[in-house]
């Protein structure tokens, strides 16, 4: 860090992760602080509120063992910066961008402010390049495009990590070999989860293209506030300066939000829903909006944050506000998981907002938009018929309704369900979609066009359906 700055010993109060420093001069808002503990250990902090003579500092390393008398604060006169360089791929860092793998700091690195700057909407390029993940539930129904931010809404115990790893392993653009990188940020997750990802990257041979920022469950919680920003600062550098296509995986946003709530409570702020601060939306947006493509750059940032919904409640503030910012969501369903369906992607609440421009003629296949729409419509009817069947019994259903029940079963097991290492092309996925649609009578399929019915429903040979 460049400027040494003045060191003050006027620590007045220590409250949770916050330190209140008095009798200071010329301190700036958001400035970086080095807090020296009585035992000489140094921790990083950041100014949250400043008056002419006092400052509130949040300490990333935690405040344990700090005492008002023995603690000193040194203000560095600049905001938090991390090194960025292409050499950081293949390395492991902590939440503040310091090496965690025992190797030295990368050479020839630029230092960039972790908060970044807002992208000018005028300078953005609208994302519309289809990414084939090889997972039908995503490719067919909730298509991911390059530069999109698409979170996974999961619950405790659901296989979100396996799905994220599968996406990282299989994701590729149709007909293109590109310069790609993965930036992985972990906040408050357990060591074995981090190891699962490392192993997965290693076994698929991409480890040298991955930069990791780990702030694990036993690291100080305040560090989690910086971790995703560090990761995205590197991602922005790789994408917009180096021109790479970057996939950013962030797990678990729920832990991030809890750290934010902790700071907010310690500052005595007026809480909004469930104790989270009123600015949770803006704060989350300052992370999620750091994705996309630029008009004049060749790179892109595709963001896949993972969050676990507390007690599977999608209306909880964290998934709720996330859904308002991100471009859709992949929702995992406990019921499907219990029935042994992998990936248990819920059919109806999942959504990709950028899908409409990334699919269709010249992108995936001309019939894709209408097939997806038809599957959604039919599957939504399945849900209604299932609840009817639970009242009057399946035997009493009309013949058409019984076909819908069969369709629902086949759709969940054959289209949504697939192997963890099964990589389907978009063609295979669309064929599967038509296969299950053939269970339904032709007259029920109103969302596909007459020509498509002739081409795919009437003429293609009927494939044996599994009973």
């Amino acid at each position: 860090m460049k400027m040494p700055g003045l060191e003050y010993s006027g620590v007045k109060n220590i409250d949770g992760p916050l330190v209140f420093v008095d009798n200071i001069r010329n301190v700036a808002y958001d400035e970086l602080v080095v807090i020296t503990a009585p035992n000489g250990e140094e921790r990083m902090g950041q100014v949250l509120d400043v008056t002419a003579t006092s400052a509130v500092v949040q300490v990333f390393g935690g405040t344990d063992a700090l005492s008002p008398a023995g603690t000193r604060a040194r203000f560095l006169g600049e905001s938090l910066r991390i090194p960025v360089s292409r050499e950081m791929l293949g390395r492991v860092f902590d939440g503040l961008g310091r090496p965690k793998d025992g190797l030295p700091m990368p050479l020839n690195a630029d230092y960039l402010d972790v908060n970044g700057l807002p992208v000018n909407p005028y300078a953005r390029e609208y994302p519309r390049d289809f990414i084939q993940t090889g997972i039908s539930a995503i490719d067919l129904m909730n298509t991911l495009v390059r530069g999109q931010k698409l979170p996974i809404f999961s619950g405790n115990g659901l296989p979100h990590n396996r799905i994220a790893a599968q996406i990282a392993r299989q994701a590729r653009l149709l007909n293109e070999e590109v310069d790609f990188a993965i930036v992985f940020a972990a906040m408050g997750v357990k060591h074995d989860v981090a190891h699962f990802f490392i192993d997965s990257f290693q076994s698929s041979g991409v480890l040298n293209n991955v930069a990791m920022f780990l702030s694990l469950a036993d690291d100080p919680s305040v560090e989690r506030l910086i971790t995703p920003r560090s990761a995205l600062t590197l991602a922005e550098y790789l994408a917009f300066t180096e021109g790479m296509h970057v996939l950013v995986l962030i797990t678990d946003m729920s832990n991030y939000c809890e750290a934010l709530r902790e700071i907010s409570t310690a500052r005595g702020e007026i809480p909004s829903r469930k104790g989270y601060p009123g600015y949770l939306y803006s704060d989350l947006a300052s992370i999620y909006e750091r994705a996309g493509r630029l008009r004049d750059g060749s790179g892109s940032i595709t963001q896949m944050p993972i969050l676990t919904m507390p007690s599977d409640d999608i209306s909880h503030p964290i998934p709720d506000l996330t859904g308002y910012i991100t471009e859709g969501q992949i929702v995992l369903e406990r019921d499907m998981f219990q029935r042994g369906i992998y990936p248990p992607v819920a059919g109806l609440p999942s959504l990709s907002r950028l899908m409409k421009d990334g699919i269709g003629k010249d992108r995936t296949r001309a019939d894709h938009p209408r097939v997806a729409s038809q599957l959604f419509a039919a599957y939504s009817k399945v849900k209604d018929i299932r609840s009817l069947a639970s009242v009057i019994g399946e035997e009493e259903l009309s013949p058409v309704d019984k076909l819908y029940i069969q369709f629902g079963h086949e759709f969940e097991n054959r289209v949504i369900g697939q192997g963890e290492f099964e990589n389907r092309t978009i063609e295979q996925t669309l064929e599967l979609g038509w296969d299950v649609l053939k269970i339904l009578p032709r007259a029920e399929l109103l969302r596909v066009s007459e020509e498509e019915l002739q081409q795919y429903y009437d003429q293609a040979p009927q494939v044996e359906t599994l009973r």
Partner: protein
Amino acid sequence: MSSDHREHIGEIIRVNGPIVEARHMEHAGMLEVVEVGAMRLIGEVIKVHRGAATIQVYENTSGLSPGEEVICTARPLSVRLGPGLLGTIYDGIQRPLDRIAAISGAMINRGEKADPLDPARTWHFQPQCKPGDRVTTGTPFGEVQETLSINHRLLTPPDVSGTIVSIVPEGDYTGEHHLAIVKLDKGGERPLTMFQHWPVRLPRPVRQRLSLRQPLLTGLRVIDAFFPIAKGGAAAIPGGFGTGKTMTQQALAKWCDAHIIVYIGCGERGNEMTEVLREFPELVDPRSGRSLMERTILIANTSNMPVAAREVSIYTGITLAEYYRDMGYDVAVMADSTSRWAEALRELSGRLEEMPADEGFPAYLPARLAGFYERAGKVETMEGKEGSVSVIGAVSPPGGDFSEPVTQHTSRFIRCFWALDRDLANARHYPAISWKNSYSEYLVDITDWWKNQDLDWATNRQVIMEILQEETALQQIAKLVGPDALPEGQRLTLLIADIIKNAFLQQNSFDEVDMYCSPGKQSWMMAMLVKFTLRTRDIIRRGGALADIQKLPGLDRFLRMKSEIPNGDTQAMAALEQLLSNGLDALERKFVE
């Protein structure tokens, strides 16, 4: 504007996020614009107390420190008005994002400034008055063809009243050029230019408000036919995430029959603004035949841009709308989303340590919402023309729960409520506007207009609404006993309701034909649905079977009429009508024999 404003300089004493406190601010007035710190960040005074001012800063305050200076400008936060607004994308405080991108690249640097309107560009001016003419507020003194479809009328600003001393001849002039000199009644002279200023928080004056008579036609059937909005009306679109608020707003911005669209992206996604920027120039306005971008102004304050500028963005937008209204245009304002604006208020209020009311929102939230929606209306302008501003605000209730404060307060100040339904959205039935929970109080105001186009409109509408209501009740029973246990007549109602939902209410905004539905086609479709209903009911009453109706030739084409029959194609309409009619005739003949 005072010339000695440089003398009034204060000093920062506290920085807390976007809220800055400064002392030595005795001369600062409420809502005055100030420049904060060495970076000259734009801020606005929101509280004055004993020489100390509280300032909300419209840019990120990182790096700002106590002791830095605050410079007073002695003017309220204003927008610049004049030709060149159309087709431009601005941020919340009217900085032109295209020019900012040219200066600072893809990221927005702090303290970046650029003229909202290009001062170097010339416009072809045609004078409309001569020396000796009297001008007062709203008197046109000239005009400029801003785009091929929009004639930009230059009106005397509200604080000017006097006699024209001189005026330039027709020709090309820049925005700051003194086009005319007015000898003011109160003494002194004042030049008139193409460019003017107006404070964003102050509604522009009008002669009087007029009652609403005309619908704002949107081309969306569920809105035009069921829950219409009048020109000059205010509507809210509440819906949880993923229910299609933005999609609906964009469809309205594309196809509604206003002359000018002001689209405010308030705390929403950057890519959505990019989408509008990319798509609108390529789309053709069905009325003027020109590119849609030529009638559109974008205000983009995305969710990651500074929160205080989000608070002001909706005022910036509506002030621009009022400016064009005063020229006699119908303007529609889309505000997406007012909840993000309310959250910005809450965040700023929290930083000010104000006592919160509901869910942390400040107690003045309803007053601010009312102030915003009341700027909608149809008016007689100061010049004596008619113009209107319609406001359509999206609301994003947390968890999709409409009982939260922003939705509740908003519904008090609007008269048209388009409730988006999660179940419809899940079934990808768009627009997911619920026919159970939505309402429009404008219906009575505009029924006469429709009756002039189509005598049966109101009756047809009523028949269709009744079927949908009946279906809701029947579904309750069907859920318990299964639809097959219902009598034929009721099953027919379910079938017809299904047809109404799929063939009429659901509209595909990506389908070339279906994306915009003309009033004529809407009337025809409604008439077809009603005819079908009456005749099939009659057939069932006489003992016909539902199965026969389901096998009716042409029924599948009837179901696809929205996308297979283009607007105004009366031949195709007649052909389909004949086909269905023949089938029904055949069924009826069975019972005559």
